[in-house]
């Protein structure tokens, strides 16, 4: 079988469907939205390396320009879709009605995904000047876990969820009218299903970035007298939730695994190229590097995202195996636990290794001994692992519900 098959539509295919024009428009808009969000994600990967090696000598650095081009582009696409769909709704265009749009303030009518992604982009745009203000006050090395970084990242999460909603709803409609995979089929996967999976990878990639401080600089949280290792909790939540949503949305063996492979390939590519891009621009512009040496590829960081494939395989296998024997709730809980076991182990190892790496990196800088993060105590690791298992089980349940919404929602 050919890996990539662009097939002619059959007589009842998308081209002949009464809503074909509307469907094509939404698919095109969703693809443009995901492209803009991907551009912003590339900019974010570059920006992290830029901060590390060059700092921040102005607001409009090249990575920031890429991020905000993506954010503004995504926002404009959402505004355009909401306005066009509203006009079509009131004009009673076939395919634009209450079953395919949500109402906003009683006036606007648009697909839920674009409304959600628009709010996400707006949140990110609002966070940008506030984040600049925070940097002006507290310096270039403000941690990722600062108020307005968090605001921007939550906005990105909302926008990514919106893109997943937009593509999932089109997938449902195409599955119902039998046009899914009629035009593009790759290794037996309909193109639109792969698009929806790729949109979902953004959520996983975002949480991975969000949890970076927990691996390097803030390994534990102090909750009163209790110390907890944090990275297993956050990473398990992200991997299990997105894996479960993927497998339930498509109900196809390997969906979760494929989703994490796509996320890993994207992250690995950005991680591979970002230091090279920093070095090219840094050398050409005569910047002084903040760390000794020149920006270089960190192969462990490049290969690390592939570690998240293991928990996804566990989720895939456990869910599909259990679903045939038990009911949905138990299947999702067991799959969640199955995914959280390897993820907890991986996250714990990553944190311990991350602290060692950070210590090694900080030792190269003068007078940095006060900044070294402490090695977490055994009870913190054990409690973190235990909580990660609980969170994994719950994330399995929530992911299953999210996947079911994406499997059914046409709006």
């Amino acid at each position, binding site marked *: 079988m050919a890996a990539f098959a662009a097939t002619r539509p059959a007589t009842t295919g998308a081209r002949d469907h009464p809503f074909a024009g509307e469907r094509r428009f939404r698919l095109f808009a969703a693809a443009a939205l995901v492209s803009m969000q991907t551009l912003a994600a590339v900019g974010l990967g570059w920006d992290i390396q830029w901060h590390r090696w060059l700092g921040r000598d102005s607001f409009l650095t090249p990575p920031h320009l890429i991020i905000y081009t993506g954010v503004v582009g995504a926002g404009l696409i959402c505004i355009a879709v909401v306005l066009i769909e509203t006009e079509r709704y009131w004009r009673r265009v076939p395919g634009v009605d209450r079953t395919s749009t949500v109402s906003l303030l009683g006036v606007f009518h648009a697909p839920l995904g674009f409304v959600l992604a628009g709010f996400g982009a707006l949140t990110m745009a609002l966070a940008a000047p506030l984040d600049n203000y925070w940097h002006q006050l507290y310096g270039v*090395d403000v941690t990722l876990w600062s108020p307005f970084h968090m605001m921007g990242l939550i906005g990105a999460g909302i926008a990514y969820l919106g893109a997943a909603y937009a593509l999932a709803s089109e997938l449902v409609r195409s599955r*119902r009218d039998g046009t899914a995979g009629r035009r593009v089929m790759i290794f037996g996967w309909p193109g639109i299903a792969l698009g929806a999976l790729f949109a979902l990878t953004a959520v996983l990639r975002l949480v991975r970035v969000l949890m970076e401080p927990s691996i390097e600089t803030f390994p534990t949280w102090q909750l009163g007298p209790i110390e907890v290792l944090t990275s297993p909790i956050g990473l398990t939540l992200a991997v299990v939730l997105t894996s479960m949503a993927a497998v339930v949305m498509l109900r196809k063996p390997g969906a979760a695994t494929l989703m994490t492979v796509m996320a890993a390939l994207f992250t690995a590519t950005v991680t591979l190229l970002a230091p090279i891009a920093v070095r090219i621009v840094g050398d050409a512009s005569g910047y002084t590097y903040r760390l000794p040496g020149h920006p270089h590829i960190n192969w462990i960081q490049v290969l690390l995202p592939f570690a998240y494939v293991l928990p996804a395989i566990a989720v895939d296998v456990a869910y599909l195996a259990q679903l045939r024997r038990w009911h949905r709730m138990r299947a999702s809980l067991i799959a969640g636990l199955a995914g959280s076991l390897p993820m907890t182990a991986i996250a714990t190892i990553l944190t311990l290794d991350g602290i060692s790496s950070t210590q090694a990196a900080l030792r190269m800088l003068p007078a940095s001994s006060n900044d070294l993060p402490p090695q977490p105590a055994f009870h913190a690791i054990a409690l973190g692992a235990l909580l990660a298992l609980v969170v994994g089980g719950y994330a399995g349940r929530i992911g299953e519900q999210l996947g079911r919404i994406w499997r059914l929602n046409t709006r």
Partner: protein
Amino acid sequence: MMRRWPSALLAVVWLGLSGISAAAQGPIRSETRYAGAYTLRIDLYSDPAFTGRRLTFDVVVAAAGTTDQLRNLTLAAWAMPEAGTNATPVRASISQAGHALGGFQGSVTPQVRGSYRLHLIISGPAGTNAVDLPLRVAAPTAIPIWLAWSIGLLPLLGLFVFGLQQRSDLARLQLMGSTGEGGASSHVVT
């Protein structure tokens, strides 16, 4: 209503004139530094400087010997953060000031509040030398940390409400799906 127009116009004119006069007034601070055979008079147009705003300055170079030493002069400048200021060096943009020998105009935009030094490197026939001028960079008033976190995490509340709404929507979708999507629930055993 109409009577308010003249006073509003007057206010606008007054604001405009005050802006012009502020721009036209001389430097806020002048300092002299000696760099080998060169003497530099540095005029700052803002003191303290403000984060995110351009700090403009003039540099007039005089030579101890002949004016030949002022030909082919080059000047480079950076705002260098002092210890305790978490910032990266910012390069200033420098241009020749008119046709006068030894005259330069520069500007630099610091990004973080704190202590800096304006580091100037002058190169010419009399050699290359560097001088430093302390700078202070102010920032807007800091809002309380709790308020910043409240604003930053506000979208999370929206996301939570959306999640609850979606959860309640799931039953309706499930009902519609079981009637509209044949085979979709073939694996479901609930």
